């Protein structure tokens, strides 16, 4: 442990530059990572599935899946160039998009992820800061939406099809028994119909709406202000000493 003390520090600084987390936050997350992986370098799906509090989450599968998505890995590779985070992030959103489309064939999930990748996924949940310009906010919004979109778009073809959407709703209602499953399809259909009619208002009877593209996805979630809602509080202080999280916000 003693020998590796300086290297992680250095590495953490590097990661902090790239993800926008503070050193403290990275240290905390690293601690948690090691706790989850059992002091391994990588973490596996089973590690995450064994988190007891996660067991009740209806979309547990998708959350865990998001960590092991190849696209996140691609992002890691790309990010390894190292650069100051914000302007860089802004560009990366687009590059990533292209990359993912290029490597459509090999998109999928991996079994193990390292800490860097773990951190990359987590960085999607950082709150916006007061100093951000409108452009940066916009980039952040797109990036968060892209993350959500990728969670829904399971086959990585750039659209959320009806089947995929139904699956999402089914998962959401998976904890509510049989009524949920019955209603899920109707709800997904209604939602899809809504997306189709708001985005392509005039459609001939022969036209076919293939699925929600990212642009349409942005459109339907415009009202939700994702940039200010999709975030969690990353603690700056040591989590092990301060366990209770009743925070003023």
């Amino acid at each position, binding site marked *: 442990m003693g020998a590796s003390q300086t290297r992680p520090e250095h590495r953490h600084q590097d990661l902090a530059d790239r993800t926008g987390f503070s050193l403290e936050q990275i240290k905390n997350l690293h601690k948690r990572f090691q706790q989850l992986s059992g002091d391994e370098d990588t973490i596996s799906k089973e590690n995450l599935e064994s988190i007891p509090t*996660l067991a009740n989450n209806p979309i547990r599968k998708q959350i865990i899946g998001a960590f092991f998505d190849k696209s996140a890995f691609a992002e890691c590779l790309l990010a390894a160039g190292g650069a100051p985070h914000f302007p860089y992030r802004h560009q990366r959103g687009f590059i990533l998009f292209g990359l993912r489309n290029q490597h459509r064939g090999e998109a999928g999930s991996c079994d193990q992820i390292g800490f860097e990748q773990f951190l990359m996924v987590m960085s999607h949940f950082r709150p916006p800061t007061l100093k951000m310009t409108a452009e940066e906010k916009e980039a952040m919004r797109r990036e968060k939406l892209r993350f959500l979109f990728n969670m829904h778009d399971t086959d990585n073809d750039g659209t959320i099809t009806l089947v995929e959407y139904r699956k999402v709703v089914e998962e959401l209602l998976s904890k*509510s028994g049989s009524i949920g499953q019955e*209603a899920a399809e109707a*709800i997904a259909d*209604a939602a899809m*119909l809504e997306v189709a009619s708001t985005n392509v208002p005039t459609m001939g009877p022969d036209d076919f709406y293939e699925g929600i593209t990212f642009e349409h996805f942005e459109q339907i*979630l415009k009202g939700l202000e994702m940039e200010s809602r999709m975030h969690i509080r990353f603690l700056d202080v040591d989590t092990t000493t301060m366990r209770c999280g*009743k925070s003023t*916000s």
Partner: protein
Amino acid sequence: MTSGTGPRGRPGAGRGLPERGLLLLLVLVLLEGSVVFPLGAASSPDVDPRGHSEDRAVAEESQNYSKKAFPVLSLDYHHIHVPFEIALWVLLASLMKLGFHLIPRLSSIVPESCLLIVVGLLVGGFIKLAGEKVPPVLDSQSFFLCLLPPIILDAGYFLPIRPFMENLGTILMFAVVGTLWNAFFVGGLLYAVCQIQPGNPSDLHNLELLPCLLFASIISAVDPVAVLAVFEEIHINELLHILVFGESLLNDAVTVVLYHLFEEYSGAGTVTILDGVLGVISFLVVALGGVLVGAIYGFLAAFTSRFTSHVRVIEPLFVFVYSYMAYLSAEMFHLSGIMALIACGAVMRPYVEANISHKSHTTIKYFLKMWSSVSETLIFIFLGVATVDGPHSWNWTFVTVTVLLCLVSRVIGVIGLTFVINKFRIVKLTTKDQFIVAYGGLRGAIAFSLGFLLEEKHFPMRDMFLTAIITVIFFTVFVQGMTIKPLVELLAVKKKQEAKRTINEEIHTQFLDHLLTGIEDICGHYGHHHWKDKLNRINKKYVKKCLIADERGREPQLIAFYHKMEMKQAIELVESGGGFKPPSALPSTVSMQNIQPKKPAAAKPVQRALPQLPKGREEEIRTILRSNLQRTRQRLRSYNRHTLVADPYEEGFSDFIIKKQKIIELEKKIIHMNNLTLPAAPPDSPTLCRARLASDPQAYRPKRDSVPTIQVDLASPQSPDSVNLMDEFRANGSRREEEEDQGLTMRPRGEDGRREQLTRCLSDPGPSADEDEDEPFLP
């Protein structure tokens, strides 16, 4: 309305009491004034009623003691005196509200609250000019027990829980610390100013510190009534609205405690440390006690509503009575009644809404809105009246210093507190936000009523206090209330989105909640989302089981939302008169078939390969088919209207959902069939198909003769025009039928028969579907 009041006024004038006739005439005059030109005209005809009233007073005196054989018609005004006047005031208030909305230009410039105060001033002026004693309209008893509760209950019942809870920390900070700061800052500096003024050896020197603090604590609380009145008109974004409004609600506890504390000790003259500690404890007791009382009554109301399914008519009453009881119980112990009401409304709402009928829900909504808006109107009018009435003692120094200090302390308080809060908040408050929060700190009638409560003998400066309070209220309501709207525009503060929530947004809100909870769990610390999730789970597991009778009420939020949306669409559709336009929620031509996967791939090639209808004709047929299908759907929905007329709307609702799904399925099948079987038919399929279609309308209409044109249309070669024509006819027909149907409560058999025919004539191979559909109709 004007002519209706007139005749009633005259007989009263003959022998009535002076007040009576005067008030009636005033209503009349003001009404005319407000409709034609708002305020200026009102002053001219008032000479007239005054002259009458003097005569009347004399006449009445002699009349009372004269003896008659048998009073065929007698007048006993005293008998109805109080309720009659109350009714009159309410009438005046409602008419004023009505009047303002007839002049849209005026109400867009000046907030309603300002206009109402002006009306109050005028009414008060008339009463005073008439030489009458102004009734003590805004005495604290009636204000706190009658006028305030409806407004607060309305606010509590419809409190947007989610943003409120998300910002609870900030709101509490502003409400508690901010109000405390305001009270002590204003009070302390006011006292200092009163003392150091050498040039003025007046009464101000006699003012002690404690009365000053008492006065400051009265004046420092932001008033929910004023805030609601102004903020509803400027449509500010949700965050700012909930910050200011939440603060105005929650600071009640602080005000109550400070008020009682200072009132108690201003007699004694000194406050010790112990009293301070007791004050803090008392604050906790008052605030938490209020919430507890409210929550208890809220749960009681929810529990009661579980059993009301057989006596639907009194359902709304439980909501009102329990809330009022909560308020009174809290007031009884000097707890915060406002917090009790808020807690009660917020706690009971989800459960009550799941239990009660749709109509009761509408009733509750309308009653609350009605009561609160009338109360609000009355409060502002009374504020004006009381201003004219009140014994004033104007002290330039005191009033100016008060107004200035109020402004300064508010600004400093907000800026200072935001600085602290922003360290903890994730979504920071910008400078603009701070400005609006500070500027939106309006004072109102609660402060006045509290000031009114002060006793003359303990507070010799009461009149001066009241004058200063009124000045501050007027300043904030008029100056700030009128300028805040242009300022919001000027600063381009984010406005509220008017759009309704869509099902997609609901899905993603839910998804996001679970996602964030999950990420928090992975991060391994328990934040906001974790606790919320836990609460939700407990709620679902235990509380809902106890408090909600119906199984349907316990369904997950998303499904409930979906059902509600469907119902709303159905109602809209029925209300639109069953015409041919699609429901407003989906103003496009996109239908189920556009989003269904797999079908086009299968259907199209086959269709192309066969010799078939020319493209145009195919279109026509499709249009006809579609419009007919829409018809069926509408028929089924209008069926629902009968159940709305008859009682069990909810019971019919689930049937309706099933039915609707069936219809969608049917539509899918038909489209499928249209694509597949039409070409598969023999070469003469166009005619055959048309013949089949021609029989169609019969399926929808038992009375064939009601729309005879349809068959002609279908059989003849068609142009797009004729299709439109047909649509029109059909729309008319449907409206006619709609009207006929209204008389009946239900006609399940007929509906069903029609549906059966429909399915048969479309050669749908789904007998099983028919059987399913029968079931919901069976009693």
